[in-house]
């Protein structure tokens, strides 16, 4: 939006020791993506006819989308609800959302059997309005473009008046500068449309991800077989969006040797228990209305997962966020945020391949090494590009002068 945000590129060395380790993990993880492309799904995954959806869908796609919710939740908070004193969270949240969704697309390419057909849902004669997945696909595709447009002014800001192409390309400097200024001007005028559109699109596909397996209630464990699936996914996305904002801000501060931005994070995290409370209330309401609490003492994997992801990693962080002592303590806040983020990861995984109990399963699905490796590689890649972006673009708040 406006340029008075005091964001600046981080002036730190890029290849620190930590970054070297991260790069090594990233390259080895991504090499398993290459392995998948060359040798196919059977060689690289433990998927079979009974478990068609696995780690890459549950984590890379479903969890990836949920954890990228910081983009639209912070947009709603700062712009729609006019909490402008939180403005510093916008750019990092936007960057994470943009990278998160980009890598959802990248990760999906490895999972799709015919990845080269990924563009098919965009062709009008293949539109399939009855399909929940079609809705998810279209919304994510459009939202990804919206995110790039929302991010564009940051790139414009960095390069306006500073376009300096080397060698023979220098003759285009003026032209590119004019284009950037024009784009920045137009985007500034209509950005509110994209911010609102981003929120609407996010609500649509965040919820629809929760509708996906509602089509097969007979295969879902009773605890997770609810027609309110979309509401669970939507309300938990609201909560985890702001949690991610807090989490990544603290990671970034740590990585760049800065003080955590508690003057913003403490008040932002005050909103989280309300959002998390709504999710917990909806979830408990569903449990009471369908009387699924009678399964709670069953020893099956989905029930154990429920106790962990909901009991331990959702309800406990909820009470932690409620406490103002926790919210004021960097350590407490970081622990609470981390717990809920892992909770979301386990929740989405449970829905897609643990509570999913196919009719004729001969063996349980345990993701293969290559599946874990690629997932970790992709997460490292997000962190790598994040670091690259904040080093060269004005995303994080400018470091305070001492």
């Amino acid at each position, binding site marked *: 939006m406006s340029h008075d945000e005091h964001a600046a590129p981080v002036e730190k060395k890029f290849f620190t020791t930590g970054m070297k380790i991260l790069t090594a993990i990233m390259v080895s993880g991504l090499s398993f993506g290459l392995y998948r492309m060359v040798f196919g799904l059977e060689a690289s995954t433990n998927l079979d006819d009974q478990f068609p959806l696995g780690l890459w869908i549950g984590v890379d796609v479903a969890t990836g989308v949920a954890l990228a919710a910081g983009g639209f939740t912070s947009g709603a908070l700062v712009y729609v609800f006019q909490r402008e004193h939180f403005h510093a969270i916008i750019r990092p949240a936007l960057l994470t959302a943009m990278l998160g969704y980009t890598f959802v697309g990248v990760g999906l390419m490895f999972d799709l059997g015919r990845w080269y057909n990924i563009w098919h849902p965009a062709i009008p004669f293949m539109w399939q309005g009855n399909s929940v997945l079609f809705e998810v696909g279209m919304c994510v595709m459009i939202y990804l473009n919206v995110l790039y447009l929302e991010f564009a002014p940051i790139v414009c800001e960095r390069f306006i008046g500073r376009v300096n192409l080397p060698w023979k390309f220098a003759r285009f400097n003026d032209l590119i500068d004019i284009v950037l200024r024009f784009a920045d001007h137009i985007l500034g005028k209509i950005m509110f449309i994209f911010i*609102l559109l981003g929120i609407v699109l996010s609500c649509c596909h965040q919820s629809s991800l929760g*509708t*996906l397996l509602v089509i097969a209630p007979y295969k879902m464990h*009773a605890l997770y077989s609810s027609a309110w699936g979309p509401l669970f996914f939507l309300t938990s996305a609201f909560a985890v969006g702001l949690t991610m904002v807090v989490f990544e801000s603290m990671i970034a501060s740590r990585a760049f040797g800065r003080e955590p931005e508690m003057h913003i994070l403490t008040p932002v995290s005050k909103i989280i228990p309300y959002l998390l409370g709504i999710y917990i209330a909806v979830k408990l309401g569903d449990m009471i209305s369908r009387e699924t609490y009678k399964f709670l003492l069953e020893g099956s994997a989905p029930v154990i997962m429920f106790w962990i992801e909901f009991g331990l990693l959702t309800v406990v962080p909820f009470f932690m966020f409620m406490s103002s002592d926790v919210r004021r303590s960097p350590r407490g806040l970081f622990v609470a945020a981390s717990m809920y983020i892992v909770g979301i990861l386990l929740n989405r995984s449970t829905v897609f391949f643990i509570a999913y109990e196919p009719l004729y399963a001969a063996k349980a699905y345990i993701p293969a090494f290559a599946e874990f490796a690629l997932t970790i590689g992709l997460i490292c890649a997000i962190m790598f590009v994040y670091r690259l972006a904040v080093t060269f673009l004005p995303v994080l708040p400018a470091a305070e002068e001492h």
Partner: protein
Amino acid sequence: MSTNRRSFIKQAAGIGSLALFGKKAHASRLQVSPDQFGVLVDITRCVGCRSCEQACNEINEDLPRKSPETFKDTSVQEKRRRMDYSAYTVVNRYENRNNPGMPVYAKFQCMHCLYPACESACIVGAFERQANGAVIYDAWKCIGCRYCMAACPFQVPAYEFSNVLTPQVRKCTFCFETRLTQGGMPACVQSCPMEVMTFGKRNSLIKIARERIKKYPARYVNHIYGENEVGGTTWMYISSVPFQDIDLPHLGYHPAPGYTEPIQHAIFKWFLPPAAVFAGLGGIWWYLKNKKSDE
């Protein structure tokens, strides 16, 4: 479980009616024709000879080739098999709870639902139910997301996981191209020496099934599996043992697309709900901004 399923259906119906829609949920879909074909499988007649498996492999030339000897081996029936990338149909052997010495055999293939979950789920419309009842897959459209496999209530579609570049979803075609459109019956039906399967108009098959059950009440369970299961299927079964004994799941009568499509079409009814959220948020933004600048 069944009480949960029922409450689930109630909930789904509740969500469906909540926002005044639902009645046109299937508008874009081919109507179920009273003339559509069907197959009645009488498992009391099946001896598990695997002739149908062989006929299926012979006519579907894009399946991996198998020699006729392969199908003479009935020891494979020691295990519970399912259809996979190499077979559209399998015959399994099951314990007979009424007559322990006499096992029963059941043939499986795609049920060709009247309201197919795969068709509703598919992101690109690669599955299409035909007027004659066949549910057909178009590999050219497919992106390989495998959501159809998760959606299918009978866990039928199989996948060519070992195919690196052009994997397909594999499932019975009802011999749509090879026989049905040329006036023939599916190859498996014709190959059966015991006349386990009867091919015909679905409506008349239901009558035949009712008559058989009525005539031999001691021989049959009084139920036609597939007449109403998940809204009805093209392939229907009658049996001497409970259907759960032969791996036909207890599903209820609600069509699978009926769980998701009411939610889906509610959220996108003429794009009104998303537009309303857009306008509502815009309104809040505008109001708060004005209020702030007044201060």
